[in-house]
C-alpha cells in the first residue's frame, strides 16, 4: 500500500491552493484550503460564494469556513488564468439579483420534481431521495 493515510489522503497537495468546492446543496465556494481531515472536513479561508446563471455571475464574500465533509461533492484546484478568462466572457451582476433568479428556478424545479416524482413512484421507482441529492 503506497500511501496508507486514513482516507482523503490525496488532499495533501491541495493545501494552500485556491479551490472550488461544490456543496451538496449546489453552492459553489472558492477559497484557500488551509486544513482537512480523513472525512474531507475542510477549512477554507477568504472564501467567496459564486453563483452562475446563463451569461451572468455574482459573487459574495463569505470569509472563513469549516465545511463538514459529508456536504462536499467535489473540490478542484482553480486555474486562475482560466478562471479570469471565463469570467471575462460573462457579465457580473449583484449577487442578490442572481440569487433571486436561482431561487425561483429551484422552486419551479422542485414543483416539477414533485409531479414527475409521483408519476415515477406510481410506476415503482424509488424517488424519495430527490430532496437531498439535487445539488
Amino acid at each position: 500500500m503506497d500511501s496508507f493515510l486514513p482516507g482523503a489522503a490525496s488532499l495533501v497537495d491541495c493545501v494552500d491552493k485556491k479551490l472550488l468546492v461544490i456543496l451538496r446543496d449546489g453552492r459553489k465556494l472558492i477559497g484557500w484550503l488551509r486544513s482537512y481531515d480523513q472525512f474531507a472536513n475542510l477549512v477554507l479561508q477568504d472564501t467567496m460564494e459564486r453563483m452562475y446563471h446563463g451569461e451572468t455571475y455574482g459573487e459574495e464574500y463569505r470569509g472563513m469556513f469549516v465545511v463538514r465533509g459529508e456536504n462536499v461533492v467535489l473540490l478542484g484546484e482553480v486555474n486562475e488564468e482560466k478562471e479570469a478568462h471565463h469570467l471575462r466572457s460573462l457579465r457580473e451582476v449583484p449577487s442578490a439579483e442572481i440569487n433571486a433568479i436561482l431561487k425561483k428556478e429551484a422552486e419551479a424545479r422542485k414543483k416539477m420534481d414533485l409531479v414527475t416524482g409521483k408519476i415515477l413512484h406510481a410506476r415503482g421507482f424509488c424517488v424519495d431521495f430527490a430532496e437531498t441529492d439535487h445539488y
Partner: protein
Amino acid sequence: MTDGAIAEPLDLVRLSLDERIYVKMRGDRELKGRLHAYDQHMNLVLSDVDETITVVDVNEETFEERIRTVKRSHEMMFVRGDGVILVSPPGRT
C-alpha cells in the same frame, strides 16, 4: 461451504458472477449487465451494460404527461452500492 450453497442473501449474488443480471437503482434508472464483482455494500462492476432511464415530461400548461425511456450503454462500469435497490439473478426461463 461449497460454492453452490446459499446461506445468506449475498450468496445469491455470488452465484450470478459472470452472468447477466438486472439491477434496479434509486431514482429513474435500471441496468442490465454482466456481473464481475460485488461487495457487502452492493458496489458492483458490470460489463456490456444497458442502462434504461425513465423520463417523465410534463407539459407545464396542460399538465399532460408523457413517459419515455432513454437508453445508454457502457462497456464497463463501477456502480456505487448506495444507489442499488435490488439485484436480480438471470432468469431461469
